[in-house]
């Protein structure tokens, strides 16, 4: 069964790792899932920000020919993801997709869908549909 990889991208290392931890719980079997967040400060820690080169390394390390779905938080995380894809070997680029999904809900749903062996497009469609989930009911039944 084909399987895609998920890359969680955040300005915060803790957010990326926390989202990855939550998402991993949703998969029926372990899936290729990596958290990339923050910028190494050279002293063993991380500051807030995103690092396209770290993303490139993560994508290459967890590469899946069936596709790689990147889920990002806001703003420059998407720009870093775009830069990372552009830095990949040309033959890898078409299999990478940046999701428009909300980070947490999207990752949770994507992990479940990916563990079912669904295609990159199908996983991303499910993740992006999370943007329309109404969290708070308007009225009690």
């Amino acid at each position, binding site marked *: 069964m084909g399987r895609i990889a998920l890359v969680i991208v955040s300005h915060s290392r803790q957010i990326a790792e926390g989202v990855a931890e939550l998402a991993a719980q949703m998969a029926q079997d372990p899936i290729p899932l990596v958290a990339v967040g923050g910028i190494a400060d050279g002293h063993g820690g991380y500051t807030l920000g995103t690092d396209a080169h770290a993303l490139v390394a993560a994508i290459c390390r967890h590469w899946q020919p069936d596709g790689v779905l990147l889920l990002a938080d806001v703003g420059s995380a998407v720009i870093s993801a775009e830069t990372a894809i552009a830095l990949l070997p040309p033959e890898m680029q078409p299999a990478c997709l940046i999701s428009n999904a909300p980070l947490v809900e999207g990752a949770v749903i994507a992990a479940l869908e990916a563990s079912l062996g669904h295609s990159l497009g199908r996983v991303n469609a*499910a993740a992006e549909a999370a943007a329309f989930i109404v969290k708070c*009911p308007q009225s009690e*039944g």
Partner: protein
Amino acid sequence: MEQGVVAASITLTHPHGLHLRVGRDVVLVANRFSAEITAQNLTRASPVVDAKSLVQLMQLQARPGHVLRVQAAGPDAQDALRALCQIFEESPHQ
């Protein structure tokens, strides 16, 4: 009810209703069967949703005490419904 279609009503007893872990289990189990499987929150008179989709299950906004109607249609519908009912029977202990 049509032949090959089975359904059950399930009252959610877990304090968190249809919480994430149970939702996950429903989707994973439902996807093992070829039957068309749907769910509806009768308490909210929600739309009927595809039980093989977590996004759609979330639309049920199912809370403790809500009654869900789960329906399966197809050759393995009986097995599917039985497996799904078992999830809810076990969920209060998760």
